[in-house]
């Protein structure tokens, strides 16, 4: 039993060390800042600039959380404060089902519905776009992380003691004032960390994004342009051109960046939950 436990604990470190060793080849040749801030990606001539991928990842993640956050927050408030208990009871399995759908299905749905729609929307702004774009990726991602964030938020709002509402109401606050000024304040650390966990989820999501985002190596200049996030880079290319040793190492570096960013967001969110909940 203890062995299994140690194995689980050690897993992230083994991963981290593996990635470090594998990507170290690249470090020998170039500095980290050079790799991260260069936008030239020509594996054949040994040029590995990660900037287009990093920027794409940031764009997709950022926009998806912008879309998902208000929807989740308002839904959670509605379900826990206004809706009858039956509604929440019905919604909970629906949310769980949404969370459990394989991401490739979201990808297919994205190609069929979202990509043409984004192309049309781009037309309204007089932008030509195939629809395979940052925005399409972000919308698909938003839909994927909504059930995930929503589940946490419902739990956060539900565990606020009802006495806090009673205190605020008995001071003459309306229900909405109570929700806005007291409950949401109480829930604030939980809200922030649910978004943080959502970000880490979105940042690492691979297949659904890869299917709709276009996969063009460029620094996207707008949301209707194609991008190429880090996970897509790894998934699309790994195993193909490993005859170039540097290429292999570069993909490992992409994985390392991904790993570190996701870990930071994860740990940061948990830290907020643990340390700030008490002080408010």
């Amino acid at each position: 039993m203890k062995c299994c436990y140690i194995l689980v604990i050690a897993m992230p470190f083994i991963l981290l060390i593996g990635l470090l060793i594998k990507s170290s080849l690249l470090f020998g040749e170039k500095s980290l800042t050079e790799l991260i801030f260069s936008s030239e990606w020509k594996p054949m001539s040994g040029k590995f600039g990660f900037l287009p991928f990093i920027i794409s990842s940031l764009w997709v993640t950022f926009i998806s959380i912008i879309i998902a956050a208000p929807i989740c927050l308002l839904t959670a408030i509605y379900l826990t404060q206004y809706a009858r208990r039956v509604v929440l009871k019905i919604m909970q399995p629906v949310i769980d089902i949404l969370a459990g759908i394989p991401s490739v299905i979201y990808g297919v749905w994205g190609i069929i519905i979202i990509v043409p729609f984004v192309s049309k929307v781009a037309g309204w702004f007089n932008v030509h776009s195939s629809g395979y774009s940052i925005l399409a990726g972000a919308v698909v991602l938003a839909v994927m992380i909504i059930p995930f964030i929503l589940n946490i938020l419902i739990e956060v709002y539900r565990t606020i003691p009802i006495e806090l509402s009673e205190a605020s109401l008995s001071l003459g606050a309306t229900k909405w004032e109570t929700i806005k000024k007291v409950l949401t304040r109480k829930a604030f650390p939980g809200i922030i960390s649910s978004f943080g966990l959502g970000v880490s989820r979105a940042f690492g999501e691979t297949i659904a994004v890869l299917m709709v985002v276009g996969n063009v190596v460029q620094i996207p200049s707008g949301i209707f342009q194609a991008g190429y996030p880090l996970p897509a880079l790894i998934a699309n290319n790994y195993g193909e051109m490993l005859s170039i040793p540097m290429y292999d190492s570069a993909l490992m570096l992409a994985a390392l960046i991904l790993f570190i960013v996701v870990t930071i967001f994860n740990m940061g969110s948990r830290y907020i939950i643990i340390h700030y909940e008490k002080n408010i």
Partner: protein
Amino acid sequence: MINGTKINIEDLNLFIGNNHILKDINVQIPEKKLTVILGPSGCGKTTLLKSLNRLTDLYPEVKIQGSIFNGDEDILHPKTEITELRKKMGLLAQTPYPLPMNIYDNITYGLRISGRRKKRFLNKRVEYYLRQVSLWDEVKDRLKDPASALSIGQQQRLCLARGLSVDPDILLADEPTSALDPISSREVEELFVKLKQRYTIVMVTHILRQAKRVADYVIFMYLGEIIEHGSAEQIFEHPKNALTKSYIQGTYS
């Protein structure tokens, strides 16, 4: 009706699901007196208290019938402007629940909601109410600290000050000392005795000795019914009902 009635409860019945929690409650609560609702745990004391400012609204499974008059306004009437009405009643819960903000904002919350925003006015009020609950000297140097950093006894006094801040004329207290240590309990109890000259106070308790120390008027409840009510003297010295008598003599088990 007794002279100087503040709250008049008529034919109040309350159900939670199919359980009949409060049965035919008819009672008057006198003005500017401390009324104690006394009775064993689970007899509906807290529910009765929460009906008074309709916090029962928060529990969808509660069904309530009858009338509770504050003056000639029926609190339970669906058209009653409940927000205004709740302002007239300060509430003190069993365990203190400070609002998730600092000490200063806890006191000014109710005032700011009513649209009072002048800094000087708020500062004065904060000091005034914190002095009322003898908390000012303990916290005056750390008004910007989160209220949750206070000891539980201090929190309860802060909650009392918060309740007073909207200038209610009724105070509702639900076993306000049950979570506190003996010293803090004593402090809170003494505050109530001090405040009863200016407020109509309704306090729920199951502690007999506490009731004896503070009550002017007593409502004795058992299993959702009012068994007996009257002046403290009458209830404690000459209880009419056998059940009341056994509770007061401590033979109730």
